């Protein structure tokens, strides 16, 4: 990934700029942060395909993992296979964040937003690669859906960590409170379907906190 691959407007959105364009100084710090992250981080991902069955709001993955979620079952409607996916910017992103928290808090905040944009873009690119492979088998991919979206409980982070062997494969671990460590990481379910059914519900839009200033929407730049 190059600096230009990372959508700066997403960074501005995470910083709460909504429909304002930041000053040139801030914009150049945004670019610095993105390139520093890309230079320092060793970004990794892993995924696996599992069988899944859906019974109303209950999703059963690999015959033994049971997830209860209305939102996810809707997202996976008519899928009988899913991809479990995990990606991380690694410990280096957290180290950079910590470093700037000590010496320059404004840069730390921008770094935080830039890191979020980098990991999202990375996930998008991985997803496109997977889509290409599946397309050869005339299969389609549903949008990413992560624990914490809607009623998909965070406790299921542990299923990703275990099923994908994340600590060993990509160095992604879970704390006792089900937080991902390194912090700039993503886990997600992607349904595999035989029909190219457009699915509108993505993470941000699925959230019930409709007055959030960071919410993605038409009025955002």
């Amino acid at each position, binding site marked *: 990934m190059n600096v230009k691959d990372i959508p700066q407007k997403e960074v501005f959105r995470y910083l709460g700029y909504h429909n304002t364009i930041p000053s040139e100084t801030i914009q150049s710090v945004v670019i610095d942060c993105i390139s520093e992250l890309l230079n320092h981080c060793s970004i990794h991902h892993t995924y696996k*395909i599992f069988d899944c069955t859906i019974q109303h709001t209950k999703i059963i993955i690999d015959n033994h993992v049971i997830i209860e979620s209305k939102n996810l079952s809707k997202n996976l409607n008519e899928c009988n296979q899913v991809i479990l996916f995990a990606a991380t910017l690694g410990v280096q992103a957290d180290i950079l964040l*910590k470093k700037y928290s000590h010496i320059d*808090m404004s840069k730390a905040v921008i770094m935080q937003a830039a890191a979020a944009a980098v990991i999202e873009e990375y996930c998008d690119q991985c997803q496109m690669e997977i889509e290409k492979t599946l397309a050869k088998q005339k299969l389609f991919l549903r949008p990413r859906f992560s624990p914490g979206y809607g009623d998909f409980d965070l*406790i299921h982070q542990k299923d990703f960590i275990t099923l994908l062997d994340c600590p060993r494969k*990509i160095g992604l671990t879970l704390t006792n409170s089900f937080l991902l460590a390194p912090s700039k990481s993503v886990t997600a379910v992607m349904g595999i379907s035989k029909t190219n059914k457009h699915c509108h519900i993505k993470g941000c839009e699925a959230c019930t906190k409709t007055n959030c200033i960071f919410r993605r929407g038409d009025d955002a730049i």
Partner: protein
Amino acid sequence: MSILELLGSRIVFFDGGTGTLLQQKGLQAGELPEIWNIEKKQALIEIHQNYFESGSDIVLTNTFGANRIKLHDIDYSIEQIITAAVENAKIAAKNACINRKGYVALDIGPSGKLLQPLGDLSFENAYAAFQEMAIAGEKAGADLIVIETMSDIYETKAAVLAAKENTNLPVFVTVVFDEKGKLLTGSDVNTVVAVLEGLGVDALGINCGLGPHQMLSLAEQILENCSIPVIIKPNAGLPRNENGKTVFDVSPEEFAQAMEKIVDKGICIVGGCCGTTPAHIKALYEHCKNKTLLPIIPKNKTIVSSYTHTVEIGNSPIIIGERINPTGKSRFKQALREKDFDYILREGFSQQQKGAHILDVNVGLPDIDETQMLISVMKELQSVIDLPLQIDTSNVLAMEQALRYYNGKAMINSVNGKKESMDAIFPIVKKYGGVVVGLTLDENGIPETAEKRFDIAQKIINTAQSYGISKKDIIIDVLAMTISSDQFSALETLKALHMVKQQLGVKTILGVSNISFGLPQREIITSHFYTMAMQYGLDAGIINTNSDAMMHSYYAYRALTGLDNNCMNYIEQYGGQSSITLTTHLHTDISLSDAIIKGLKERAKQAAEEQLQQIEPLTLINTELIPALDHVGKGFEKGSIFLPQLLMSAEAAKAAFEAVKIKMGKSGEIQTKKDKIILATVKGDIHDIGKNIVKVLLENYSYDVVDLGKDVPPETIVETAISQNIKLIGLSALMTTTVTNMEETIKQLHDKKPDCKIVVGGAVLTQEYADMIGADYYAKDAMATVYYAQKILG
């Protein structure tokens, strides 16, 4: 024959992968393989036996994840699982090995957690989990311990210490590198070798992650630096994703051929990892069993490391930054007493920027707990700065603890020729590894002559050798004494330096600055002495990197002695400058309040310094600093200023306050801080950026912030609130899963300290949520806490 004896006699063979074999025998998805040690014993015995029959000398027990962090809520204890696992392997050895011994290695894999400060597992808890395994393994009769598939050198250190401190078994360690030769947590090959050799493991190497072809160059790199036996255990090629399943492509024959090349380089312990089978091991055995063992040549490199990289002493002069030291620095002393780690870290960052290779860390003050302080400062430094550290203390307990928790191979400052010093320091150098500074003084003080200092150096080296510490891990300081009291002292020091270096063949170090003590314009003398010392063979100088004169000596010396390729470093430093004195353009026409509003840090500091020559510090705070901050705060509230700008202004104000602090320190005035406020990210939560933002802003308004950090247990917050009688407490939490701990903290605070107010904030919180968990106030953004503090505390 013990495994260590076997190791010196021929190539030694490990087993291969077990995961796929267990699946073939019916291990279901989601089932814990470790349980099979007890419930499907026969399956494990067969697998182990198969490997022994294929030529393995050592098999690993099926205990990779049998630690209390991964295995809980099961019907068996860790000891039961490990005992059964060792027993299975021993039965297999007995069945398969006739006329030879089959060795059983207790397999210890990673905890699956990330260690603090990046994750929530403490070093002690990691240690305890590995300790439990090691004790059970030895009791059950394992012949050795193999710590494998590690991707964090710090966690590996915990495991090695647990194995070595609690058992008498040989310890082998293998880690996982990526193709660039890095662990997932950033350590490079040389660092891993330096740290593990320092800890005294019996063999080290790599497993998993890569196939035999990719491991060849890594094997070579290890061999270049390593003085102990090296282990290589690749996967059967690089993993490939086929329909979402992981597959490995390298056949037994191809595997064996590739491994043969690795063995020819000097590797003496081989085996396989993921995707390898008894057939791979059989082929490997057939190809390599008759190979001659190449001798292991000791590498005499003097190496220290952080957790990411090593610094070799002895090629080009090494700079050790001396600034993290309270001696003669009242601002630094204040920072230590107030636990102002930000200040100390900034000293670290600035030295790194100026070109230091290693940082000396001395935090000794008579009225503080040095051990605790040293560990805290060291951990803080290591969490953000990747330079190796030189632990500088005369307190042996503090030194021992610092070396225990240091992440890497440290420099140890220091031991001296006194028996008492050597008796205390050498055992801990031997145990934890490190390069130790030997000062040429003894019971009779510092000798005047070079010859006598040389004698002490020799005594130090000989005594170290009797502890098993090699000369490469000693660096001698022949001590620079000021020329103001003895005009020949510099010459004597240089003579001693030369003798020690030439005749004892040991590396040298000097605290350079002492030479000019008591003289005017000390930099002139110090920097010239520094150049002379380098010319006489000084390998590492402990210097003030903030001094331009010293850095000029350093860059000029390297350029003049052919150490700086095409003078590139020199040109990089000084090219493009019209003269040596740098003039920085600092917008000199901008006022202090404008500098704060615009977020110009450097100018704010300079403007404050200028104004402080005319007006009193307090007046400056009240007439310029606070109004500027208020202006920015209001803009943020209205939505015309955004978070990054608010914080840039806060940083600029902070720089101005720093100038105020220095001025007040000089005039002996004590800064009146407003009331204390506790800030903490609640237990279970490791996301503390929001809390840190609030801290910067509160400090701008002169509140005395007691920052308890992240992942803070409710009890710690309550105790601090009571013991320091604090009336306002700010708590942050990011995720729904940690808000329960916030609620618990609030409950305990309301019970035990009813007169305090609690303000909460964090991504997941709303007014309703805050009300529900009993908070007194919900801060919707960064400034809201400042306004609430002003309302409650004034």
